[in-house]
Structure formats: structure tokens, C-alpha cells
């Protein structure tokens, strides 16, 4: 007898059932900018390189970094880090220590001697860059990488501009500066030192010999404090003071100095003076909490024994036999709508006197635009440029402090990069690239914080105060590798897929497939529940309605 075949045992898999028809929305992978990226003046792919650090791919992180900024070691020390201010993680605990990590990567590159790749092709177009500060060097780097012939003109005997002559060594060790500049020049940039372009005529001539010119001569003219006699022997401008002290020269100013201003330059002056043995007071219009310098700079200055006399204005100076008397008044300071704007009123009966030996005004610098009369026009306090950083003279581009009031080193580096892209497109139309729209940033609520347990930020170690005051050694200490990797792990990696496999492993329908370098959604089976989106730790997946 034949056995009866049983019809009741399964003979196939559920793969024959296309549950994708149930769906009305399909997840898709998107790389959205992180808030730090949006805030970054050089468009540094921060989430990307932090992820690389966390995965211990430090070289990869450096490659990602230097695509946008050839100065990670410098930026890692002195950047005003709007990235950290905008970091989504501040909503959970504290920002990721992005700067300290940038320094970690930058220093590792210097220690290990990582060099930039030579240009893949040599191009005939010649570009002149005037000004060897952060904007000029950044532009030179970006243009040279693209194969252009770059001549760099610097008025002073050494490259670096503000980095060399404005930033004190306790914030930026000069050997770091030298190494990061040398690495750029080694790409094959022709430098012309002590080569000041004096006037519009010289500029015009230069323009005739080059396919394009980039002008980044900075802001070299000190702003004048009304009523202060700059010729008096008890007054020394901050830029001069910093240039001299950075060069190791001595300034005979007496024991007690009053620094006027509340910005980074004022802090640099005050702290430099403190290291040179002076008693230092900072006199600022702004109240303490509104001082424009970075908070860390203010805090460190206080640690170093610098006195702060805030919400105060100098009214006049009386010179005596042994020093000077500053007649001041308390003011009511009200910040304005835009950065730098404010209004104030004197407080009744707020007059007070301050005795000192010298005054160093540090209230900022203006761009020297008059020099270019006939070639370039002013737009307020800066040189007029269009959206692509081109001045009103064809082929002449400008950037840095000369063309912007965003007076931060990394802003200048970013401007140099953006101008380089524009110049490349100008001289070589086949290299025109549209500036990508940064797009909407990943909001905090898109991050599933269950995957990011609270963890304190690495409090980057600082030099002890007594050691600081005896030298110009860097105050901030480097992060050891293990700590750097851990700190990078605090990054939410907003909007950048980390290949964590959460979407792949959480899908109840096994409808996420792994493909080269990422994932894809199998539309045959995806039911559109959105669990992958909800459980994505980085906000890199979203749902798209389907008709």
C-alpha cells in the first residue's frame, strides 16, 4: 500500500508572501548635517571624523579633517568651537569635546609625520595670494591641492599672520604652527616673504600677471579708543604688544597694567602680561557674563590672578609721578541685535578711579581698505565682496578679516577654503562646483538617547596655575589616546550612519539588507513600521510617505 502523502506540512517559506503591500511609508537612509557641521566655519565633517576616531582610525579622521582644514592641530587649540555650542549632546549632558579631539588628531598627524597627498595633476593657472595668515594659507592649500600654481606673498618675515603674531604661545605653541604651515608649503607653494603689496597699483600689476588674486591681508589697523592719547608713553596698542612679546621682545610698561577690552585679544594681552610678571586688570564695557572672549579664556585668566573690572568705561587718564590714574565710570551695558552692537548708559554716581602704570587697549582692529582705493571698494568696515568672495574687480577675491567681521581664526580658514573653490571655478570653469546646501540639521529629538548613556565630558587637563605663570607653556594639555577614543564615543554622530546595525538587527521583518558600505530597505517585505527610524542612534533614517 502506498503511504498517503500528507498535505499538512509546510513546504515553503514566508518569503513568498510580499508583506510590503501593507505599507504606506518606506524608510530611507539620509545623511543629514549634524548641528556641529552646520556651525563649523570650515564645514568640517565633524560627525564623520569623530566616528573615525572612535573606531581608532586616526589617519582616516585626519584625512577627513584636512579635506576642509589644513590646521587641525591649530584649530584644536584655539578654535572658538561653535560646533561645541551647537552640539546636540548639550541637551543630554555636555557637549562633546570636539576641539580637544581635533587637537588629538592634528598632533598625532604631526607626531607621525603624515603629509598631504601631492596634487593629482598640475594645472597651468597661476594664483597670487596676498597675506600668509590663516585665510591666505587655507586658500593656498586648497588651490594647490587642486593642482594650481600658487604664489604666496607675505609682508612679514614669516608666515602665519595672526597665528604667529597675535596668538600667544601658551595657547598655540609655535612649533605646532611651524609644522602645520610647512606641511602646506611642502605641497609646492612658492612663498614670497617680506613681500608687501603696497597699494592698488601693485595689486593691479599682480592681477595682470596672475589668473586670479586672493587678498587676505587681515585687519591691521588698531581701533582707537576715543579720548585716549595713543602717543602717551603709558599707552601701548594690543597688537604691538602681542607682536613684540610673541617675538620675545621686552616692553617696559611698569608693574600694573590695565587692559581695556573683553575679547580674546584682551585675554591674550592680559594673560601674556601676567606671565611677564605684571599685575593685570581687565576693564570691559560688558558685564562679566557677556564678555565676548571664550568663557574658558576668562576663567583661566581669573585663575591666573587677573582682575576683572566689568561694566566699566574709561573716561580719562591722569598721569602722575608714579603711574597713572584712570578715571572710570560704571555703565549699564545692553547688547544689541547683532554681534558687536550694543548700547550703554552711565550709572549715576558710578565714578571711580583706578591707579596703574600703563594701558593696553585691546578693542579690536580694522581692515586697511584705503590702501586699495581705486581697485577695491568698502562695504562698511570691510572690503566689498560677492557671495563667492570676489571683489568688485574681476579676478580679485578677498577674505579673512579684510573682508569679514567674523574675526575668528577658523572663520578665516573657512573663508580661504570657500574662496579657493570659487577661484578654481573662476579660472577653470570645468572646476565649478556648486556649494552644497547644508540643509536642515538633525534635531535632538531625532537621536535615540537610549543608546547614549549620560557620561561626563572629558575635562581636558590643564597646566597648574603656578606652572603657567612661570612660562609660556601651553595651558591646555593633550588628550591621551584612550581618553580621546572614549570622548569621541560620546558623539551622537548626528545624521551620519555609523553602520551600527541597529536598523538591520531591529527590523521585525528582516527587511533591512546589508549592502556595500551600508544598508538598503527591502520594499518587498518592509511593512513601514518605522522601528528602524526610532531605534537609529544617529537620526540617519527617516520615513517617506508612499502613495
Amino acid at each position, binding site marked *: 500500500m502506498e503511504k*498517503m502523502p500528507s498535505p499538512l506540512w509546510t513546504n515553503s517559506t514566508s518569503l513568498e508572501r510580499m508583506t510590503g503591500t501593507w505599507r504606506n511609508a518606506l524608510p530611507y537612509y539620509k545623511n543629514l548635517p549634524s548641528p556641529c557641521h552646520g556651525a563649523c566655519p570650515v564645514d568640517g565633517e565633524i560627525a564623520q571624523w569623530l566616528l573615525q576616531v572612535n573606531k581608532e582610525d586616526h589617519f582616516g579622521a585626519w584625512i577627513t579633517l584636512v579635506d576642509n582644514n589644513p590646521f587641525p592641530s591649530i584649530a584644536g587649540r584655539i578654535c572658538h568651537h561653535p560646533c561645541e555650542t551647537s552640539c546636540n549632546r548639550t541637551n543630554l549632558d555636555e557637549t562633546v569635546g570636539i576641539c580637544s579631539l581635533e587637537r588629538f588628531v592634528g598632533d598625532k598627524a604631526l607626531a607621525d609625520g603624515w603629509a598631504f597627498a601631492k596634487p593629482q595633476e598640475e594645472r597651468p593657472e597661476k594664483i597670487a595670494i596676498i597675506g600668509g595668515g590663516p585665510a591666505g594659507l587655507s586658500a593656498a592649500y586648497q588651490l594647490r591641492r587642486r593642482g594650481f600654481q600658487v604664489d604666496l606673498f607675505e609682508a612679514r618675515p614669516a608666515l602665519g599672520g595672526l597665528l604667529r603674531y597675535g596668538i600667544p604661545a601658551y595657547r598655540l605653541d609655535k612649533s605646532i604652527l611651524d609644522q602645520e604651515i610647512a606641511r602646506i608649503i611642502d605641497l609646492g607653494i612658492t612663498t614670497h616673504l617680506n613681500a608687501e603689496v603696497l597699494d592698488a597699483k601693485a595689486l593691479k600689476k599682480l592681477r595682470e600677471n596672475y589668473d586670479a588674486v586672493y587678498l587676505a591681508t587681515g585687519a591691521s589697523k588698531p581701533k582707537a579708543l576715543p579720548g585716549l592719547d595713543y602717543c602717551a608713553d603709558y599707552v601701548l596698542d594690543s597688537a604691538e604688544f602681542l607682536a613684540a612679546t610673541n617675538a620675545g621682545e621686552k616692553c617696559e610698561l611698569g608693574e600694573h597694567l590695565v587692559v581695556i577690552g573683553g575679547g580674546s585679544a584682551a585675554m591674550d594681552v592680559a594673560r601674556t602680561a601676567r606671565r611677564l610678571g605684571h599685575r593685570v586688570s581687565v576693564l570691559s564695557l560688558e558685564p562679566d557674563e557677556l564678555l565676548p572672549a571664550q568663557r574658558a579664556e576668562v576663567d583661566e585668566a581669573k585663575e591666573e590672578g587677573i582682575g576683572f573690572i566689568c561694566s566699566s568705561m574709561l573716561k580719562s587718564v591722569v598721569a602722575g609721578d608714579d603711574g597713572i590714574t584712570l578715571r572710570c565710570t560704571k555703565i549699564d551695558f545692553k547688547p544689541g541685535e547683532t554681534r558687536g552692537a550694543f548700547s550703554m548708559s552711565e550709572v549715576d554716581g558710578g565714578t571711580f578711579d583706578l591707579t596703574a602704570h600703563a594701558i593696553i587697549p585691546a578693542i579690536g582692529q580694522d581692515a586697511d581698505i584705503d590702501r586699495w582705493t581705486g581697485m577695491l571698494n568698502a562695504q562698511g568696515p570691510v572690503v566689498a565682496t560677492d557671495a563667492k568672495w570676489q571683489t568688485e574687480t574681476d579676478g580679485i577675491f578677498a577674505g579673512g578679516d579684510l573682508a569679514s567681521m567674523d574675526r575668528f581664526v577658523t572663520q578665516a580658514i573657512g573663508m580661504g577654503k570657500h574662496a579657493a573653490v570659487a577661484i578654481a571655478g573662476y579660472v577653470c570653469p570645468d572646476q565649478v562646483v556648486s556649494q552644497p546646501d547644508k540643509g536642515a540639521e538633525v534635531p535632538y529629538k531625532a537621536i535615540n538617547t537610549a543608546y547614549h548613556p549620560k557620561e561626563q565630558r572629558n575635562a581636558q587637563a590643564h597646566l597648574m596655575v603656578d606652572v603657567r605663570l612661570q612660562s609660556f607653556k601651553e595651558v591646555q594639555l593633550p588628550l591621551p589616546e584612550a581618553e580621546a577614543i572614549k570622548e569621541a564615543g560620546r558623539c551622537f554622530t548626528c545624521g551620519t550612519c555609523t553602520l551600527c546595525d541597529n536598523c538591520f538587527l531591529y527590523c521585525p521583518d528582516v527587511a533591512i539588507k546589508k549592502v556595500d558600505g551600508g544598508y538598503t530597505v527591502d520594499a518587498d517585505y518592509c511593512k513601514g513600521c518605522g522601528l528602524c527610524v526610532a531605534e537609529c542612534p544617529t537620526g540617519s533614517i527617516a520615513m517617506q510617505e508612499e502613495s
Partner: protein
Amino acid sequence: MNKMPNSLQLLSGNHAVSWAARLCKPDVAPLYPITPQTPILEKITEFHAAGAMKTELLTPESEHSAMSACISASLTGARVFTATSSQGLLLMHELLHYAVGARTAIVMFNVNRTPASPWGFWPDQLDSLAQRDTGWIQLYSETPQESLDTVIQSFVLSEKLNLPCMINHDAFYVSHSVEPVDVPDQGLVDGFLPPFAPEHMLDTNVGSSFGAPIDQATWNRSRKEMAAANDLVCDEITKIGREWGALTGRSYEPLEKYRCDDAEVVVVTMGSMCGTAREAIDDLRNQGIQAGLLKVRLFRPLPKQALQDALRGIPCAIVLDRNYSPGTGGILHQELKSVMYGQENAPKIHGLLAGVGGLNVSAENIRDWVKKYQKAKVEPESQWVE
């Protein structure tokens, strides 16, 4: 007792069943005790404890779990044996359906006992007859020897057709009465009963699943396939019974006829009452009444053709039912009437509710009833007799 004897042993019906189970070497034996089945369980556990039976003995908390384990073990490709009675069988009811739907090859022994309430422990076949629509093969045994022989044959039958089989004998009259029983040699049984090798089973190398929800058409198809398998049972059990006879000298048929050839009246019954009836038939023959006995051994599937052939031309049949189905009467009575309906030369069929609740039925009783009902007008309803 570890040494397997090949001679006669004095065994109760229940111990004969335990011996049969031992000879068939079930892989798994889930068992739950209940009076009057308990001696079957205890003898098996004794065999097991002594190492004479290698089965996986499973002693769960209920007959329900015992049957659950039987089903899944059978579907895993194991030979499975269990035993129960009355309440235990009724508790299994849901799973009896399941076992057939799953086309398992479970062999179960049931000791027929009155179902509660009220509580009683007496021979009555209602417990198993109430399971007649579940699809289990049902065989009724008259003696300890027959119980032993039928268990062995049932394994061959069940495993061949993928239909579970329930063998029944009456409480006490068979379960606890002792007679010399020929316990066959293990080698003989091994040769008679091939290894269990179902075509479909829970196999990690195949990954095919059983019991997933299905559509109406598939459920319908499953019943047609079940029907097709049922159609094979009668011929198959006949063949197996004769093969067993060739080996042991004890041959079995689905229906057994005793002095029926020229009978004017035939008693039809099942189980232990057949022995008593045989004695009554002999008495009646001695008194010149041409009486015979038709013993129904296979109740499910009902051997319709064999019943029709056996009864055709006989003027009178008297069915003795040791069961009572309220609203219907004696179950075998009803079954027989439906089998003979529309048949030419069908006998007139009396149904007697005899010994319901375990009342003793003597040969004298049967003799009297035959005399009375052979001449009586046929009533459609079963008649209570004492």
C-alpha cells in the same frame, strides 16, 4: 522477571497489555495513573526501573499532558504508547481529535470504565464509544491474550497508516482477570513490527512544520485524506491479524463469527461480553435454537461491508450494548441499524442495553433475552434489560 519468557504466563489483562508494550519497544511512553488502568502503568514502570524497557517514560500531571506528549513525540518520529481509562480518556478528548488530524501513530490502551458522574469504577464502554467521531481506530478486546496480541498488531497498523489506534478492554472483567497468556518471543515481535519511519516528521534537517493555520480547502482536504486512510483500515487489520495468526496460531479478524453459518438469530456485541455470549450460544444450540455470535472487534472505522455480509440473510440480530447514549440508546445498536439500512435480506435488529454501569450479565440472561426477543416485535429504541 528481566528475562523474557517465551512460555505461558499467568497474566491479568492489564499486565498482558504492559507485556505487549514492552515487546513493541516504544521510544516514548507518557503515562498517567487512573483506576482501573493503573496496573498497566505500574508494570511498565517496573519494567523500566529494572532496565527491561528502554522507553522514555514521562509521567506528567494529567492525561491531557500525556496525550500532548504522545502527539508531539509521534510527530518527532518516535514510537509512542500510552494507556488510560474513563475520565482520563475524556480529559484527552480535545487532543484525540488533534492526534488524528496530525496523523500520528500513537497506540493507546483504554480500560473501559463508567464516566462520572456519579462516580463509578465499573465496566462500561461509553468512555471510548464517546470518542467515536475523533477518528481513532478503535478495537475491543475480549481477553488478556487478545489484548496483548491486539496491541502488537495495532502498532503495525497505526504506523503504516498514520492513524492512531485505541484498544479497549473492560474494567475488571478483562483488566483484572488472570489467565494463562502466551507472551511471544521478542524476536518474533521484532520481525513482525518494522521500525517506525514516518514520511513527515519534525526533522531539523528538513525544517518542515506541522499544524500551521490553514484555509478551508486544506482543512477539507485533510479530512478527505483521513477518510482515504480509514478506508484501508479494515483490509489492513485483516491482513495483519492473519499474519499474526501465521506466526502464533492466533489469527484475528475485524469481525469474528461464532456459529453464525446457519443461524436464525445472532447476538452482536463487543468486549468481555463476547465470552459470556459464546457460552449462551452453546446452551441455545443445545436447546435446538440456531443461535450465533457476531463479535465486533473493530468498531472504528466501522467494518460496514463485513457487517452487511455477516448479517445478510439472518432473520434476527440482537445487539447487546454495555453503554448508553442518552437520546439514542445503545451505540452499537444505532451503528448496526444504520449499516443495515436499505440492505436486502437485512435482519430485524433488537437493541438491548445490557450491563450498563457494569451490571453483571450472565449466560443465562443472554439465553433468556435471545429467546424473548427472537420472537418479539422490533422496537426502534434500545430496550433496558436486566
